[in-house]
């Protein structure tokens, strides 16, 4: 762990909000993204990620320095999102309903956000929205691991820590998640053609 991070953790423990903000500066965007990936709703993603960050701030004295702060923080984020989902009792069906709405919004925004060659942009968008949709159709367990590994790019051991499971589970689950994801994508492509 970086020395500067250690210092910030120490200060955060004393209740220094600014230090904590500095500490999470690099992570909060990812935290939001993980939450968004899991919940697929802007408002929920904000609520859940902020709840997780607050939890991290309040419980920072429980951070035992054994793992990195990053992993510890993301574990809180993932668990909070799982709890959040459970509390809101978002069933798969309602997610599907939300996809249409969310997709429209997202597509609109992406086009607005991106700049560059219009042709490449459209092609890329097509692909990414397809893949993105497919990710959302995965079971929660698979979705989480795909988000962590392929979208966020965590290492296997980090994922094992974040999800509180062992390495073997991560390997096999990731393998199955990718297989499922590929199957879904191929299905979607067939429908679209």
């Amino acid at each position: 762990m970086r020395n500067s991070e250690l210092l910030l953790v120490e200060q955060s423990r004393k209740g220094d909000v600014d230090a904590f903000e500095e500490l999470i500066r690099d992570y909060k965007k990812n935290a939001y993204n993980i939450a968004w990936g899991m919940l697929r709703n802007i408002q929920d993603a904000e609520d859940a990620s902020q709840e997780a960050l607050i939890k991290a701030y309040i419980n920072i004295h429980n951070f035992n320095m054994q793992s990195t702060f990053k992993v510890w923080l993301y574990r809180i984020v993932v668990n909070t999102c799982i709890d959040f989902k459970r509390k809101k009792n978002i069933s798969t069906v309602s997610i599907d309903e939300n996809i249409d709405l969310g997709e429209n919004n997202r597509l609109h925004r992406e086009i607005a956000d991106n700049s560059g060659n219009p042709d490449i942009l459209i092609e890329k968008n097509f692909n990414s929205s397809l893949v993105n949709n497919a990710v959302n159709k995965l079971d929660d367990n698979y979705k989480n691991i795909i988000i962590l590994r392929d979208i966020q790019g965590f290492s296997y051991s980090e994922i094992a820590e974040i999800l509180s499971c062992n390495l073997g589970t991560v390997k096999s689950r990731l393998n199955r998640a990718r297989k499922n994801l590929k199957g879904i994508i191929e299905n979607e492509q067939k429908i679209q053609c």
Partner: protein
Amino acid sequence: MNCNEVRDNLSLYIDGELSEDEKKLMDEHFKTCSDCSKELEEYKKMIKTLRELPKEEPPVGYCKRLKDKLLNAKQAKMSDVSEISEIKGHEKLSKVKVNRFRWVKYAGIAAALVVVVLVYGMNRGGAWAPNRNIAYNSSEEARAPQEEAKSEEKSKIIPEVRDGSDSNDNNDGNEYFASDVGDNSTAGYGAAGSGDSKGPTTLMDAKDKEIKIIKTGNIYSRTNDYGKFVDEITSKIESLGGYIENNNTQVYQVYENDKLMHGNLKIRIPKEKFDETVRYIEGTSEVRSKNISEADATKEYYEKDNKVKNLEAQEQKLRELFEKAATVEEMLQIENELGRIRTEIDSLNISIEDIDDRVSMSTISLEVEEVMEAGFNLKSEEGIWKRSADGFINTVNRIARGAENLVVHFISLSPVLVPVIIIFIILLIKIKKH
């Protein structure tokens, strides 16, 4: 390496999580198998797309709102120590709650098991039976009745005692003897002592009627040594001129090596010796209940006696007629009538004799139960500590025995229990998953 194995390892191959040897094998396979290398390319493409998915930008004002919340949290954290623990421990608290809940759940299961063991074991061990310390062995139970069959003695069937007051309306038929039995018996009943009758009665006049009292006793008693008690009482009764009409003995419980016996004895004893016998039983065993009744059979007795006399007179008359009979038909008719009267007389005589028998020989129904010494020890003066120590040891023994029984029954029930438990576990897992 075949294609299936390669496909299973694709994910790890892409992430570089395979060992060198495995990687080499995979590389070799990709050179030869176009399908698999195509699959690999597709995977790589998919993962690349995933990696390049545009990052979501937090909504406008995200950081501001976060800062506000953090400041609120800080206030709460700083201002109240107790509140801190509440908020910070939200996660913890819920865990504690879950833990507590679990504890209750497991404690509940454990308590239920203990109750089952105790109740089951104690019931099997006969803890609620009148006697303490009695274990019950079901294998011995089956043997007991067979032993019984051997030890059972002859039984004599005796018509039931009828209440004398039933037969009031027989007066009409009495031509020769006025029936004033009713007055006599009510007057005599009070005065009737235990031994004022004078032995077996003979036919008598209406003038010196004897009071017929049937004495019966019901005694329930306990003894420490059944065999000895029965032997003693048998010899005593024989010396008094009585006999045991019926002895029905059975093993009702087996405790370790001792069999506990239970018996029903029907004792016939000359009425003069009735009280002596009762006193003897009271002296040699622990009498739990005693019921002595005296039934007055005087009225019934003399009614029957009168009837017999009437019938005999009738018979006499018929015999005279028979002498005078002229035709065969008449003779047959009279003979028929004579036969009927004779049968009636005989049956009445039998019941008269029976009453005589029951008057002269009183009946005692004795129920004897064998108990362990402990049943008697309770009475003796023991220190409270000694008694509670005994009780403690007994309880421990009972629990141990109950546990043994439980194991035996669990194993014998396992063909049913094991599938049930498996189903239960599957259900539990499914519920947990939800």
